[in-house]
Every structure is written in C-alpha cells, then in structure tokens.
C-alpha cells in the first residue's frame, strides 16, 4: 500500500506518496518549478540545477535540486522565493547564453526571468542535460551513447566514437533533446543574437502569482511533467 507524507511547498500543504521527488510532488500539485534535465520515467541526475528550491530545516534553508530531493513528512519547501528565483534566473542565463539556438531553452530562460543576458552568446549545440543518454540507457537499454570527457570537454558520444550495434538509429535520443526545436526565427546569425520564441513565451496569465502553475504551453516543448 502506498504510504503518503504531507509536506509544505510555498505554503501549500501537499500530500504525496513516499519516494516521490519534491519536483514531482510540486508539479503534480500545480506548483511550477522549471526544469530541464528531469524527464518523466527517467532517473534524475540533478544536472541542470533549474529545479532548485529552498529546503527549510531547523531554521536554516539550504538550496538544493528538487528532482533529487525525496519528500519527507513535515518538510518545508520554498520553490519560488526571491532567493530561489534569482539563482534560478542566473542558472537559466548561463544555459541560454551557452545554447541559445533552442526554443525550449529560450522559453525556460524567459520563464525564469532572463531579459538581457549579460554574457556573450556561444551558440553551442548541447547543454549536456543527459536526457538522450538516460533515454538510451534506461528506457531502451541500448547503452549506445554516453558522456565522454570531463569539464569543458564533456560531450555525448558513442563509445570510442563508433556506432555500436546496439544503436538501432531509433532516434529516441533526438525526440527528447531540448535542442531539437529551433527558435521560430530559425537559427541565430552572427550579429543578430537575440531571443526569439516570444510568441510561445509570453506567459498567458498577465500577472501570475508566484508558485502557481501558469499552465503555460512552454512545458510542451521541454517536456514539463504536467504534459506527459
């Protein structure tokens, strides 16, 4: 039988089965926590750090990723405090300046409040969220792709750069990739580095309350757990 615990997220009492992550519990309760590397049905690695929340414990609050934090009885979570939103905006800013050529990432950045990025754009193709690797490894058990290298050299690749027989070219990795949807204006040209994606990204509710799920359509593109 499922055991339930009750926790508080942004002041709302949320009842959730034991073993659920705080992120899943919040999204299920309609509290929006932006996320990128978390995908339903895959394990969580806590890589993108967009889903950070404040975990208040013994009067002290620590910042931690909500996708890897499991619910506990009486837990107090602040998912949209000023501190969290500021940090989340900075993380989104790092992401979007690294890889602006993705509608999903532009949408996330706008959702997190990035208006004018303060770093030069880089136009990389991959943000190493690892959705493809986990889909290939966990859902399809193909183990065809994985992470290679460390730090700046980290990239997703076949082992030794050769496509193994286990890769059936099923393209599941491409389907989950946040880079697979270009911005509506197409790819950025040098010198024209600005955000597109405005059509989708204008949040529908003009003045949304902190912590409310705005039922935005953004989630469709980056696989928000609401749209599974």
């Amino acid at each position: 039988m499922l055991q339930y615990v009750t926790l508080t997220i942004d002041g709302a009492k949320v009842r959730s089965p034991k073993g659920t992550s705080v992120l899943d519990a919040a999204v299920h309760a309609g509290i929006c926590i932006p996320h990128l590397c978390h995908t339903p049905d895959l394990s969580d690695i806590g890589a993108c750090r967009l889903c950070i929340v404040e975990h208040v414990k013994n009067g002290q609050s620590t910042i931690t990723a909500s996708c890897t934090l499991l619910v506990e009885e009486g837990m107090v979570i602040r998912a949209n405090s000023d501190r969290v939103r500021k940090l989340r905006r900075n993380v989104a800013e790092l992401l979007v300046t690294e890889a602006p050529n993705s509608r999903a990432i532009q949408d996330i950045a706008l959702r997190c409040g990035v208006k004018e990025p303060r770093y030069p754009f880089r136009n990389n193709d991959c943000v190493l969220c690892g959705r493809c690797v986990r889909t290939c490894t966990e859902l399809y058990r193909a183990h065809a792709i994985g992470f290679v290298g460390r730090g700046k050299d980290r990239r997703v690749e076949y082992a030794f750069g050769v496509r193994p027989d286990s890769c059936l070219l099923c393209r599941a990795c491409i389907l989950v990739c946040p880079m697979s949807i270009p911005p509506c204006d197409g790819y950025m040209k040098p010198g024209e580095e600005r955000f597109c994606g405005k059509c989708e990204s204008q949040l529908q509710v003009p003045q949304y309350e902190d912590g409310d799920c705005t039922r935005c359509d953004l989630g469709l593109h980056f696989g928000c757990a609401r749209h599974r």
Partner: protein
Amino acid sequence: MPRVNAIGELSTLQERLRAGRANGETILTVCGGTGCQASRSGAVIDAVRAELERQGLSDSVKLRITGCQGFCEQGPIMVIDPSNVFYCHIEPEDVGEIVARSVQGDEVIERLLYTDPATGKKVRTEAEIPFYRAQDRVLLSKNRQIDPCSIEDYFAIDGYSALAKVLTEYAPEAVITEVSASGLRGRGGGGFPTGRKWADCRGASGDEKYVVCNADEGDPGAYMDRSVLEGDPHAVLEGMSIGAWAVGAERGYVYVRKEYPLAVEHTRTAITQAREYGLLGENILGSGFNFDVEVARGGGAFVCGESTALMASIEGKVGEPRPKDVHTVEDGLWHRPTTLNNVETWANIPSIIQNGAAWFASKGTEGSRGTKIFALTGQVRNTGLVEVAMGTPLRKIIFDIGGGAANGRGIKAVQTGGPSGGCLPAELFDLAVDFETLAQAGSMVGSGGMVVMDEKTCMVDVAKYFLAFLLDESCGKCVPCRLGIDRMLEIVTDITEGRGRPEQLPLLEELAETVRETSLCALGKTAPNPVVSTLRYFREEYMAHITEKRCPAGVCRALIEYVIDEERCTGCGVCLRACPHGAISGAKKEPHVIDPLTCRKCGICAEGCAFEAITIHSQGVPCYSM
C-alpha cells in the same frame, strides 16, 4: 613471518623489537620522501649503501630510509643516531666524509649542519632548529622513527597497540564515544566531526558496511596526505581497522591517486605485511574481528576527492559526484553505509586511542582539537610540512616556522585550503588557524595547503589560475559549475587583459554566489572562493586593472612593459643576446632600448641583467622590481 594470534603475542613481539632498538646501535636516517627525492636523496642513499659496504659497516650500522621529515627545503636530510646530529643539503659526494668522520669517528661536520638564519650559528640537532622547534609534531615525528616498508619498525614504536587495546577493552560504541570526546574533525577539508560520522554509520542499517580512506589529494601545493601515507602507512591502516571495528565494517579501501606511485607502493607493502602478521584478514588478534583493506588507484581526477565521486570511481564508474541528499554514511559505496575519512584523520586515530581523548582535546582550540599538518609552500624561506596545534596564528606558521619571505620582499597574502580556499591578506595574519576562524574570514583550513605569496603576485592572476584549474577539473555534470566557472574565468581574463569594465565586478560576485549556492557537489560549491576572497581583500587590485588598465604587481602580460633604465644600463649587451625575439637594440656601451612592439614580455632579459636596469612598468608606473 609468524602470525600474531593473540594480544599477548603482539606485546611480546613489540617488547623484543624495542629491546633490539634500544642497544644504542648507530643508525643513519636518510629522508626518502618525495621532496628529498627531488633533491637527489636517491643518489645519497645509494652512496651511503655503497660506502657502508666498502668500509665493511653494513652489519653494524643501520641505514633507515624514512618518509618525509618535513623540512623539504633543506633536503636531502640525514640524521645520525645516537648522537642525533642533523645534516642537511647532503650531496652524494659528502657521503664518504660523513661515514669516515661522523660514523666511524665522533666528529661533527660543520659544513653540513643547518645554519640558524636568525643568529647565523650552526646548530647540531633537530630540536634546535627553529623550523622544528615551533611545531607540535605528533604524526610527522613518527615518520623519522620508522622505515615505512618495515612493519617491525612500526611495532617498535607501539604500532598496532591501539588496535589491540580497542579489540580487548572497547566495545564499538566506546570507541565512537572516545573519538567523539577527542573532538577530532575531518582533516580533508570539511571538518565534519569524525565521531558523529562514525556514529551515524554505525546506526545506519545495512548488511555490509565499508570504510574508505581518501588519499586523492590534489590541491596545488599540498602534499600532507601523500607524506603521511608514504611515511607511515601502518598508522593509516591501524586507524582504518579501529574505525571498521567501531562502525561494523569488514572491508576497507584506500583510494590513492596514481600520481603518488610511492604512496601506492608503500600502502600495498604495508597491507601485505599486516596480512602476514594477521593484523588484517580474518580473526584479527584472535578476537573474531575480520577486516581487510584493498588499494584502489584513482586515475588522477581532482573531482574524485569528493566523497561520492570517489565512491563512484571505486565502483568502476565514471568519477562524478551524485546528489548527497542522503548522506554517504547511509548510502555510500555500492549503496551501503560507508565511512569515508581523510588520510590524516585515520592516522590520528591510533594516537587518540593510545593517549586518550583528553590528551588529543588538550591541543588546539575549543572547536578545533588536535594538531594539523600544513604544506607550507610558495615564497617562504622554509618550505615543507608543518604540524602545529589547531589555533596557531598564521603569523607563527609563516614567520616563526616558515622563516618569512624567501627573497626579502614583503609577504602580501597566504592562500589556504587549495582551490576551494581563499587568499588572506597580511593584515589578517594574526588569525588563528582553525575551522571556524578561517571560514569566517572567507577561506578554509581545507586539506592544509598553504601557499605564501609575496608582493610580486598579482591577486587577479591568482584568481585566474585557480579558476582555470577548477574549470579543467570540474566533472562537467552540473550547469553552474561547468558554465559558471567558465564565465567567471572569461570575466577575470577580460580584466587581466585590459578589457575589464567596472560593471563586471558585481556580475562576478553575483555569478560567484550562484555557483556557490546551486552547484551539485563541494567542488562547485567552493569553487568561487578564490575569486570571492581576492575580491573581498584585494578589490583595489581589480579596480587598478579595470579603471587604470594597470597591473600593480607587474604580472599580467597585456598590461605591462619592460623598460631599460638608461642610467643603470651599461650597454653590456647581455640582454640583447638573450632576447629570443630580437626586441632589444643598442650600441655597445650605450644604453639599450626595448622595442615595445616586438617585445613578447617573456622577462628573460630582466633575469639576465646584472645591473638591475630592466624593470617592469605598467601604464608608466614602475611595478615591484625584479
């Protein structure tokens, strides 16, 4: 080798070995630590062996090759017992004379003695040297008494008595109480109370538990763990055995990085010897306690010093940290409860058990008990390993023990705690070195690296160096660490190359806060420390780079120029010939000129100038001269 099956047998064995030692035989102790090996102690050792052979003294005189004795600056070091004479800077050519005069004869060779820089007098013994006198050497003093490859030497200094004591007199809980009472805190950097960690691990549910020794030391300028493991591996093994008894583990791992081949070799030798004596394996000392240790070699990734990455690496996976919402004492190696401690922490355990918690707690300060080894490096006269009680002021370590600046220039800052620590300015040298005080000042004790910097160090450049190091060593898993450090480095590089803008400093601070708060593991969480601490204490240097485009220390190449002083230049032509880029011109006996467009600012000319005529200028202002 006989297996030691009972406690009584161990004490008999120790008694016998101690008696064998006490008969006043002549012992030549030569340091074979990594520092001394770099100054050719290997050749000295070979020469001593050959010389003893030649004089027919091989049987009567014992040669003991030890681990690091700390005073690396003066290496190779030799101590002759029983007269206790301390020789330093020994060359292989000196060995013949030493054997003839000091071993066969009773003379002291003045030339090889250490000169006290304060008085200018030669001193005979280790105890008289200021470097050693001001220290409190608990762990390091053992290094001199034992050959790390000989378990018998370790027995002779009461080795494994603590384990025997624990197995007979202590229940596991009592060991934890004792360690908690001692106030020992993790020596690897975090400073987590060891007793509490053990208690948590003991309380965790699991069919199998592990103890792990973290010897993946990778901070630039730090080599304490290396020296303890190289010089006294049995102390670490004994500490781990005691820890395993306390938490209920039967297997242990020593995770050593592969750049420490000597540490790997000595640990393996020690494990083999301990197994032969039955001190590792099944039914240790007849107590029914089983414990065995294995060496796991790391591939040399800095991030593998982080506990969860280290465990992933032992498991054979990629060395990447994982979220620590559940602590490793409950869910560690192979998802079993695991106690992970640093080399120095483990090595402290036997002496705590032997001498009691009160003895250990009597050293140090209220919150930080005991002694700590620091690796003193950089622009300081006496570089080497220093062991002092916690709470010793920085000034005492740098000036009394370290002997002050190496070249007469003023000391500007000290960098403590490696890439995760911070830079403390000279005004704060009265701070006591303990966990809390340094953390409040924006740095940390860390694993114990201490890099002393003089006035010719540019603090922006230091921040840049550490950022580049961390960017290289970040595993790249989480966004703030991988991209955040990259962006910080981008900004700091802009500043050092004269493209800095004033608004970049608040951005740098905000970014530092983001990386610190949101990163996945401790590497990222502490990565901004070098930037934050230099910004806090040396903000004017950043401002000079940004607003005046000037590097006050004369380090950042884009902002400096080499200038020849016309009055001092004699026209000797040394610089003209030395310049690899042909940037210097001038007739003989006439002052030379450097062409700023051709000059690549390598500094070779200034090094060669005997008249100190070449100085570094930045925006027309002279920087600290060469």
